[in-house]
C-alpha cells in the first residue's frame, strides 16, 4: 500500500546523501525514491535496489541485430539480386560470409545500443511530452532529494533525517 504522506529530505552534497542513505537503511526505513542532479556512484547499492537487467536485454537485442544482418544480407546479396563484386562467389552465403562480417558487427552494435537506450527510457517511464515527476526543480541543479513514505512515524523520521545532515525536511501530502 502506498503511503499518502511522504517526507522530502533535501541534501546539498552527495557524500552526505550517501551516508544518510546508509543510516536510514540501517534504521530499516524504506526509501521510495532519490532525485539527484547527476548519477551518484554506489547509490543504487546503498539503497538496496535490485541490480539492473539491462545487460541481458542488450545481449538479446544484439542477437536480434546479428540475425537481421544475416537474413538481410542473404536476401539482398544472395537470393534477390546476386552481384559479382570483385569475383567473389555470390551464390552461397557461407562462401561470401567474410564480406558480410562488418555488416553483421555493425547491426549487432546498432540494435544493442539503440534498443537498449529506448528500453532504458521506457523502463524509467520517460517518453516524449511526459510531464516531469521531479517534485522539486532544485534537484536538477545542485540539490539531492530523498523521498520516504510516512506511516505515522513522522517525528521520528524528521529527527533522524535532520541528524543525517538534511538541510530541509518537508512533509508532503500526496493525496490532495
Amino acid at each position, binding site marked *: 500500500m502506498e503511503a499518502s504522506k511522504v517526507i522530502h529530505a533535501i541534501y546539498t552534497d552527495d557524500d552526505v546523501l550517501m551516508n544518510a542513505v546508509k543510516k536510514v537503511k540501517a534504521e530499516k526505513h524504506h526509501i521510495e525514491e532519490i532525485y539527484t542532479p547527476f548519477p551518484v556512484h554506489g547509490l543504487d547499492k546503498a539503497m538496496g535496489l535490485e541490480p539492473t537487467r539491462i*545487460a541481458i536485454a542488450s*545481449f538479446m537485442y544484439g542477437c536480434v541485430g546479428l540475425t537481421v544482418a544475416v537474413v538481410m544480407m542473404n536476401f539482398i546479396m544472395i537470393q534477390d539480386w546476386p552481384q559479382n563484386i*570483385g569475383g567473389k562467389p555470390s551464390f552461397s552465403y557461407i562462401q561470401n560470409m*567474410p*564480406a558480410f*562480417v*562488418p555488416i553483421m558487427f555493425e547491426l549487432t552494435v546498432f540494435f544493442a545500443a539503440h534498443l537498449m537506450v529506448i528500453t532504458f527510457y521506457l523502463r524509467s517511464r520517460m517518453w516524449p511530452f511526459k510531464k516531469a515527476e521531479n517534485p522539486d526543480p532544485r534537484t536538477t541543479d545542485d540539490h539531492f532529494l530523498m523521498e520516504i513514505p510516512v506511516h505515522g512515524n513522522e517525528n521520528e523520521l524528521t529527527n533522524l533525517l535532520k541528524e543525517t545532515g538534511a538541510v530541509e525536511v518537508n512533509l508532503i501530502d500526496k493525496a490532495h
Partner: protein
Amino acid sequence: MYTFSNKLKTFSIVLIILGVIGVGYGFWDSHKYETEEDVKELLASEHHGHGEVHATAHADETHHADADAHGDESHVNGGHEMSHEEHVLHQIHNRPWAALYVAAFFFFMIALGALAFYGIQWAAQAGWSPVLFRVMEGITYYVLPGGLIVLAIAFFADSHLFVWLKEGVTQPGHENYDALVAGKSGWLNKTGFFIRGLIFLGGWSLYRYFARKFSIAQDNADDNKNFKKTFRISAAFLVFYIYTESMMSWDWIMSVDPHWFSTLFGWYVFASMFVSGITVIAMITMYLKSRNYLPFVNDSHLHDLAKFMFAISIFWTYLWFSQFMLIWYSNIPEEVTYFVTRFQDYQLPFLGMVAMNFIFPLLILMNSDYKRIPWFVVMAGIVILCGHYIDVFNMIMPATVGDRWFIGIPEIGSILLFAGLFILIVFTALTKVPLLAKGNPFIKESEHFHY
C-alpha cells in the same frame, strides 16, 4: 615476502626435464629420415595407408607449398626444381626447430606483453593497478632470458626456420637464387637480424631494469622523485616499444614467409602478446592470492584484469579479421597464398584458434559476475593461452613444415620446457622483493579500488 614453494619449484624442474626429453626425442626422430629414399618410403607407406583421398591432397599441396615457401621466382631464376621428396625431407628436419621456436616465442611474448601492460599503467598513472606491479615486474623478468633464447634458436636453426638464410639466395645464378628475397636483403640479412634483435632486447631490458629499480627505490622514499622518473621513462619506452615490437614481428615471425607481407602484422602480434601477458598477470595474481600472499588484492582487481582479457581478445579478433578480410577480398596471388595454405592444411588450428580466442572468451567473460570468480577466469585464461599458442603455431608452421604439422611430442615437449623455465624464472624473481609496492603514491587508491 614471497617464498618459492618447493612443490612449485619441483614441478617446474620436472616440466623442464620432460621438455628436454621431448625436444631431444623430436630431434632424434626427425633424423631418422636422412635421405630422399627414406622419405620416398615414408610417403609410399602414407599413400598406401590413406589411399586415394590423401594422394589428391598431396598433389594439391605440392603445387602451392612450393609456390609459397620457395616462390615462383626462384624456379624461374634459379632453374632449380626441388623434388617433392627433398621438400618433405626439409620439412621433417624443420619440425623440431619450428616447435622449439614457437614455444620459446610464445613464452617470451607473454613476458613482453606484460611489460607493455606495465609500461601503460605507469604512463597512464593508473590508480587501480599498483597493487599488481610486483607481479608484473616478476613476469617481465623473463623478457631478457626469453628473448635471448628466441634469438639463440633463430641463430642455430638458421635456414631451418628462415628460408632467406639459405646459401646463395641473394646470389644471381645460384640454384637457390630468389629475386624477391635478394631485393629485401638490405633488411633481411643475418647480421642485421641479430643486431636489430639485440637492440630491441636491449631497449626493453633497460626500461625494465630502471623501472623496477625506481619502483623498489620508491618503496622507502619520502618524495615522489622515483615515481616521476618511472613515469617519464615509461612514456619513452612505449614509443620505443611500439616501433621495435612491430619490427621484431617482421623479423622474428613474418620473415619465415619472406615473400609475403602484411602491413598490420606488428599490431596483430602485439594484440596476441598483450592478451597473453594480461592473462598470465591475472593467473599468477590469483595463484599468489590463493596462497595468501596478496591480501591487498580484491576481486575488483580481478574483475578489471578479466575485463582486459575480454576486451583485448576482441581487439585481437578485430585485427585478425582485418588482416584476413582485406587479403581474402583483394585476392592478390602473392598475398592470398598465405591464407590458402592455412585454409587447406591448417583448417582445424586456424579456425579453432578463432573459436578459442574470440567466441569462447566472448561468451564466457561477457557476464560481469563471472569476471570475479577465480576458477572461471582461470579456465578462460587457459583456453586463451592455448589459443594464442596456436596463433603463433599458425604463424610459423605453414612456412616451415607445410602440411606435415602435428601437435605431438616435439611441440608439447617444447611447451613443457619453456613453461618450466618461465615458472622457475618468474617465481624466483617474485621472491626478491616484497609483493606490495608500498611507496607508490597511488597505492592507497589501488588498495581501496572498488568497482
